[in-house]
């Protein structure tokens, strides 16, 4: 339980040493409480600050969706469900130090719930209600898994959640009559409401297609999720999660019930996965076992590692890579004269290379690396400033 730190390595002038020792989670360690004297142009209140960012992001998203073509719109719709799930996973893994290979399965729970509720005879429930139900059910599943997970660590936890990822989609085959077996359930996406058509007409005059509507649904869910997650990350809750991650015994002695807080992190993460699954079902218009293989869980994990563990922005960037890199590489392969099949096989290869390169040269991910650079620069400035003053 003691730190491997000796007085000998605690010389003065250590400021230049990277300040966060756990490089991999550097992106997660933005302080939740600013020390006095920090200046900022943003409002002091967390709520106002995050609402401001929310509104700006919403405006940015509308502009992005309206200047791009329908195909990009549908790509962005895929981006939203990846990002929602990755956001939840990055909180679990980066902030609380738990790994999950089972998030694909939790997405399946959300997706099947949505498919079942939209597929009822007659008028289905309103979309937000269905989403809430999907979130609630995946939260319950997540809580059950979380209770088991709270007692496990590292590879054991990975193994347990792996079993979930492999086993849960099998339920669809077992309950063939309700869940549609191998073919899965087709999802009837609801028609866009009139207010949406009017809104699009007002903003850009583009045709308000079904694809665009689904992209907007995804973006709205993404923004709400990230708003809520950002609130948590910046609060005492996020701080407590990181404390549990860094030093179990010390956290426990501070009065933190390790198990309860781990389960809480897992539940929050599962809720996100459930919502992501719900959005996925709408966008893909299908909930089938083949959509929720282990590859999905691994892709999410890759996205958050490349983006920077523990950072919501990193989760978004990683998801963007997940969505936009494969077509880009395939096109590139086509330009270099590869035939269709070979070009398509290029994408997973390049993805793997990017992951390996990121692990070697930027283990903190995109956001974490930038953050480390910035902190080193600041520390250098501070030392230089002190030298100038003190002589």
């Amino acid at each position: 339980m003691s730190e491997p730190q000796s007085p000998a390595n605690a010389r003065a002038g250590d400021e230049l040493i990277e300040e966060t020792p756990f490089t991999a989670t550097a992106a997660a360690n933005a302080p939740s409480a600013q020390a006095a004297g920090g200046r900022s142009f943003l409002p002091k209140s967390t709520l106002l600050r995050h609402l401001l960012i929310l509104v700006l992001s919403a405006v940015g998203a509308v502009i992005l969706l309206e200047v791009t073509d329908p195909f990009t719109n549908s790509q962005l719709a895929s981006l939203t469900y990846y990002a929602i799930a990755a956001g939840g996973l990055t909180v679990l893994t980066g902030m609380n130090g738990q790994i999950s290979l089972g998030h694909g399965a939790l997405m399946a729970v959300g997706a099947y719930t949505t498919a079942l509720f939209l597929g009822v005879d007659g008028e289905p429930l309103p979309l937000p209600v269905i989403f809430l139900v999907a979130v609630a059910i995946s939260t319950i599943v997540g809580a059950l898994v979380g209770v088991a997970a709270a007692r496990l660590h590292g590879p054991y936890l990975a193994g347990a959640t792996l079993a979930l990822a492999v086993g849960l989609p099998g339920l669809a085959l077992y309950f063939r009559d309700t869940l549609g077996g191998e073919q899965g359930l087709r999802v009837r996406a609801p028609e866009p409401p009139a207010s949406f058509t009017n809104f699009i007409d007002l903003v850009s005059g583009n045709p308000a297609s079904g694809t665009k509507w689904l992209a907007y649904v995804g973006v709205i869910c993404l923004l709400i999720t990230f708003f809520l997650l950002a609130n948590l990350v910046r609060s005492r809750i996020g701080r407590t999660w990181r404390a549990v991650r860094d030093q179990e015994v010390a956290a426990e002695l501070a009065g933190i019930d390790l198990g309860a807080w781990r389960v809480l992190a897992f539940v929050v993460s599962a809720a996100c996965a459930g919502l992501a699954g719900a959005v996925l079902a709408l966008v893909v218009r299908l909930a089938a076992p083949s959509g929720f293989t282990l590859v999905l869980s691994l892709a999410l994990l890759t996205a958050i590692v490349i983006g920077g563990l523990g950072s919501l922005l990193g989760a978004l960037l990683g998801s963007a890579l997940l969505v936009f890199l494969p077509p880009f590489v395939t096109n590139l392969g086509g330009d270099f004269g590869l035939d269709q099949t070979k070009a398509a096989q290029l994408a997973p290869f390049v993805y793997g290379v990017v992951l390996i390169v990121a692990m070697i040269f930027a283990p903190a991910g995109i956001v974490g690396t930038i953050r480390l650079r910035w902190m080193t620069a600041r520390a250098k400035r501070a030392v230089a400033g002190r030298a100038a003053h003190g002589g």
Partner: protein
Amino acid sequence: MTGISVAFGGVAALSDVSITVEPGQVHGLIGPNGAGKTTLFNVACGLVRPDAGRITWRDQELRRLRPSRLSKLGISRTLQGVGLFAGLTVLENVMVGAHRHAKAGFFSALLALPTADKDDRLLRERATAALVELDAEAYAGRYPGSLPYPVQKRVALARALVADPDLLLLDEPASGLAEDEMHELGELIRALSSRMSVLLVEHHMDLVMKVCDRITVLDSGKQIAAGTPAEVQADPAVTEAYLGDAVDVEADAAELAGTDGGRSND
């Protein structure tokens, strides 16, 4: 704590040890390496469950004590080493220590309600006050890994103090400190005893003798002496535990010299 016994497998780490910390007193716990001091500490924290014995706190017996309940009971503990959260700033580290004073719950945090902000501000003020008391407020925004060891120890102490405990358990607070820092620490502990009771495990005899009101001496899991510093110092059993008796030392030395003479002493 009365009649505490702990065995790890066949090894009796503690047998029938009793210790009582009076309110407002500094109680020292000393003994040679392996005497069971830290084990006794871990029992007091619920990290190790005793095989026999009772733990009583404020006239109530604590059954099934769990470490996470400790701070609610008004007991804080520092760890051997520092055990700071490496990924949190110094200020945040101390704020985690104030966990039991937090009121805002999950949903106010989720929605970033002003109550959560206010609650966090109160925690921050508390934490800052604790850092100021230990003269470490200049490091509030830094991460522990980059700080000199004595500063880390002060931060760890601040994290324990910020919970406003009634009983503070200090596990080797002076290890790795220089002479003058140890002197400061002694004065700090004396000052703290006006607000809380302190139970102190320490190797540095001069510090222990100076700050403690009462001392319990352990050797090989048994309590061999208890009393005021003067009484303990005069107790022959204590001298024997620490030094062995004179004849033994000489015999050992002779034996060592005979069998292992070539090696320089380390």
